[in-house]
């Protein structure tokens, strides 16, 4: 099948046409450099994202957190929901881990709060 993507490697924003068979990329068109092809392959075969959000601490103040590494793109909402239900008590500091492993990533605190 054919999938359309916009390359995000640079401001060119090349419109990529990607031919996929099963879960394999067989052809990338529309890219103007090598990076575009690489991007297409990773976006099609295993798209991942770093998720950033907040968790409301026991004391009521929001704490910014993120996945330490990118997680599968289709798990974003599940990850956000699990983070929301985590119990976090102030004070926290940058790098504190609030969840050890969520789809392969620890959830870490991004700011000093409290």
């Amino acid at each position, binding site marked *: 099948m054919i999938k359309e993507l*916009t*390359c995000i490697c*640079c*401001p060119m924003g090349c419109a990529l046409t990607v031919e996929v068979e099963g879960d394999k990329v067989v052809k990338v068109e529309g890219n103007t450099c090598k990076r575009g092809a690489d991007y297409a392959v990773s976006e099609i075969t295993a798209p991942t994202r770093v998720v*950033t959000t*907040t968790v409301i601490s026991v004391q009521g103040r929001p704490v910014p957190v993120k996945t330490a590494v990118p997680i599968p*793109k289709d798990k974003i909402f599940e990850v956000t929901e699990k983070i929301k239900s985590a119990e976090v008590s102030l004070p926290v500091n940058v790098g504190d881990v609030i969840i050890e492993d969520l789809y392969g990533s620890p959830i870490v605190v991004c*700011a000093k709060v409290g």
Partner: protein
Amino acid sequence: MREFDLVIVGGGPAGMAAAIAAREKGLENVVIFERDHSLGGILNQCIHNGFGLHTFKEELTGPEYAYRYAVKVDELGIPYETGTMVLDINDKREVTIISPGRGVETVKAGAVVLAMGCRERPRGALNIPGFRPKGVYTAGTAQKLVNIEGVVPGRSVVILGSGDIGLIMARRMTLEGAKVKAVVELMPYSSGLKRNIVQCLEDYDIPLMLSHTVVDIRGKDKLEGVYVAAVDSKNVPIEGTEEYFECDTLLLSCGLLPENELSRSCGVVIDPRTGGAVVNESLETSIEGVFACGNVLHVHDLVDFVSEESARAGAAAADFVKNGRRTGGEQIKLIPGNGVRYTVPGTVDVTNVEQEVHIRFRVTGVFRNSSIVMTCGGSEVFRRRSRILVPSEMQDVVIKKEKLEGLSGEMTVEIRGE
């Protein structure tokens, strides 16, 4: 009267970088005045990642990026006073500050670095007719409500303007359970980064309506909905194309304005194109010993560039305090030519350039397969070919001192097609 060698106005990324650079140049008596209760500025509410690729070679969230600089400020023992707002600066570099603890106080500064950042264009300036109900926020205000106050301002959202904050907030509101119905952009192209369009809109199937605008706001007390219409090539709404979107929240992401009230009060000359100060190669404003950097100078798209620029301002301010004003040599005046909206700096005195000078600017439109060309007195000083130049990305050109030596008069910066 307390006296400081260097007063830095604002403890965001620009102020912190300037303070660190000044201290590293050996200036001891430096202080940062920050109006919020902690350092970090706007980065504290920018919880998304993507910061620091240039500076730290890794992707950080805004608070993490700020934290690295705050740690450095602490390590260097640079004093900072939070909850402290600068009310006035005069041309003698006397700085009047206010805080709950110390009251109103005027301090003397050997040099001043202006690092107040920028603010968002409000609704009034956008000239959108309709009611003025609850539920209309600038994207940054909504960002603060969600990320700092922990309050999600609505459940169904329309966003006007596809600036990066608007795109980021489209994703943020979605992750907080709101339905973002559309991002509406007046221009035929987005002013945000491609990456944000893909990762904040396309990932969540949020439509981006280019060449559209909000033409009416409905709901007397609380926002009930907005009318969106297509615009013609002159950005005038086309009658009959109105579409109603029911929503309880309208976020505005329609541009940033350097916050230069203080600069004006001390007589700094402002460039109407940037909304920031006119500066020379040392990032010094028209007032001797007053420097400017970061978003108060011109709006940046990357914080890494803010930090780099501000470090130069801090170093130059330290040099000014220690060595006084260097005798002026020949001035090169930079002229924005074809396709170039402005340049920072506006003038270059080569004798004050140590090794190289950064020339930053934005282009006026999308240019493909073009060159950035700088010419002075008929000869070409710089040329760089680029596959694409877009207004949303600030250009940064570094020119070696030896290239500029012996030059004077006007140097034009322009974009030439191939």
